């Protein structure tokens, strides 16, 4: 049985029932980043340190990594003095991949993306949560912007879109940046009963109250690592992304990756070479992107779930 504040799963694993913190009483102001990770050991050294500086608390939910991801996350937190506001949780069930596999998984199953997300975010004990991935990297401007936003959000309930750029990484020295595409997606949500996850057609979806107030932050605050030597679509059960505009971003990523791997030029893609002795991701994060003229991407495509048009812009 499910009731407000808790959800049970059809597999009857009560040790993995969802118990929302907000059901136990008011949560103190603050922002908790929740990262659901699986084999992100390569990306975490870039993603975690700036995030530790930007938010109050971090929860890493490991979903069966075999590359030492949870151990590395703990070590990074210790190294950056954040052990007291850092937590690693384990979710030991296989979770359906996006697309048809997800669609055919009941929403109250331990294997459902929606259930997995609800379980992961139920551990948030602050007034706001930040949905983050193990391969998402905040720029220096991004760290400052989030720190500022954190206290600005205290008296209001706002859903925040943080525009996200893809960065295609070929090796330590070389990466490619897409000047033609940017992902607009809400990442910051108030923590409460109106903001739980439900099942949508391709993946999970966060519910929002009818009168949601939106904020779209500026471009250039974060980017997502796309490793050209890895399978960037292994969390999809089908790579047929032509069906709807919901997967417009994936369509572009396939197009770019295919071209870069084949050595073809593609409009809008710029090559970035790191200075000697620097990793290209670190270079992009601390210098290259912060210096780009704004707006970075001029033509913002119609994006899935980018909030109403005309939302407040930071």
């Amino acid at each position: 049985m499910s009731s407000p504040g808790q959800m049970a799963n059809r597999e009857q694993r009560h040790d993995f029932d969802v118990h929302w913190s907000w059901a136990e009483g008011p949560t103190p102001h603050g922002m908790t980043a929740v990262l659901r990770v699986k084999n992100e050991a390569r990306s975490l050294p870039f993603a975690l340190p700036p995030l530790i500086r930007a938010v109050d608390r971090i929860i890493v939910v490991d979903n069966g990594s075999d590359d030492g991801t949870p151990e590395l996350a703990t070590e990074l937190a210790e190294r950056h003095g954040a052990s007291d506001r850092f937590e690693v949780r384990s979710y030991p069930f296989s979770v359906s991949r996006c697309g048809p596999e997800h669609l055919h998984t009941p929403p109250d199953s331990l294997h459902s993306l929606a259930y997995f997300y609800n379980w992961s975010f139920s551990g948030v004990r602050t007034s706001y949560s930040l949905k983050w991935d193990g391969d998402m990297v905040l720029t220096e401007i991004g760290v400052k912007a989030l720190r500022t936003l954190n206290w600005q959000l205290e008296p209001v309930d706002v859903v925040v879109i943080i525009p996200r750029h893809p960065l295609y990484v070929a090796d330590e020295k070389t990466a490619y940046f897409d000047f033609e595409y940017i992902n607009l997606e809400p990442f910051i949500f108030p923590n409460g009963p109106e903001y739980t996850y439900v099942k949508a057609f391709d993946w999970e979806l966060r519910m929002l109250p009818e009168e949601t107030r939106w904020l779209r932050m500026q471009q250039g605050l974060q980017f997502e690592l796309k490793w050209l030597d890895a399978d960037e679509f292994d969390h999809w059960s089908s790579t047929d992304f032509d069906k709807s505009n919901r997967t417009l971003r994936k369509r572009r990523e396939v197009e770019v990756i295919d071209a870069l791997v084949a050595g073809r030029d593609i409009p809008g893609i710029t090559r970035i070479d790191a200075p000697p002795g620097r990793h290209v991701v670190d270079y992009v994060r601390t210098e290259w992107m912060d210096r780009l003229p704004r707006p970075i991407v001029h033509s913002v495509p119609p994006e899935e779930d980018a909030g109403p048009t005309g939302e407040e812009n930071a």
Partner: protein
Amino acid sequence: MTDATDLVPDRRIVFVAGSGRSGTSLMAGILRELGFHVPQPEVTADPTNPKGFAEPQWVVDYHARLLRAARVHPSDARPSAWFETGKFLNRLRARNALERWLGQQLEISTDLVVKDPRLIWFLPIWQQCASELGARTAVVTMLRDPTEVVVSKQRSYGGRLTTTSRTAGWLNLMFYTERSTRDANRAFVRYSDLLEDWTSVVADLGDRLNQPVIIGATSSAMRAAHNFVDPGLRRSPSGWDQLEVPLRLRELADEVSGALDRLADDPSDADAQQRMDAARVGYSALYEEAEGIALSSILAAGSPNVRRRADGQPVTDPSGAEQEADGLADSDDSLASSDRAALSAVDPPTGPERAIDRFVHRIPHRYRERIPVGLRAKLRRNAVGEREDR
């Protein structure tokens, strides 16, 4: 080269069919939230359906008028009732009224969802009008365990209909819903599946029926649909134990329920269609038998709604029977004057024509039949004035 049949027409109409209390409002409401247009105004919500019916008021009025003219009850159990309502396909004014209204709605939106439990009685008219307006149609039929339907109807509507009558009505409706949609772009959806996880059911519908509104639904639309689906909706207890229904009717209902369940997986399942055909024949025979058995009771009741046909067989006229309280509004006031004029051709006889009818029926048939048919028609025209399209 693109095959012409691959082209998606610019206009699409999804009809949601099925017995009342089978989740038709839930399905139509979800489609509405995902982006389909429900022609306005809609029937007002009431305690039997607090989240609304997703039924266009005009459609309800239109069907109610035609049903009344055909002397057919929305849950009519007579197999012959389908012939009575089918006649309207050949009524120009009935078609014109619908085509004019439908054309206006398709100007408002290229993707419509039309739902009314009475709709299936007139599906051929809808399909023809849609075709003439260049719209592609699809039919989604909701399936629910018949015992749950009967229990839910008894609880929501009450009234004089017995559980046996309601079970027979369900059978008749499902027989012909299935039969009349065999050539259609159709899908059958289990209510229980929709309650369990509407996302997978509706996404599948989008693919199977090729509906761009579903395929391209936005996150906002999906949130709206989630908000619309009442998590409090649960299956009612099912089973025949709680119902007094004759064994043969139960067996037929179980057989039909099983066959329809197969069609939910494959709407063109030949074996399931054969089972439906066989059960339909069995039901017709059972109904005829029951009519014969009950004739004395019907005559003894002295109902003014019972007449005899020329061949001496009884004709029950359920137009005076209770109307189910499922959003029925049958007032002339709810129709525009142009619609009233258009529909006047399908009204039951009124005024002088009704008086003539009463007079004529007092003349024993053995005398009336001696008057040549042509002369009889001429006399009638002279008496009441010629009416088109009747």
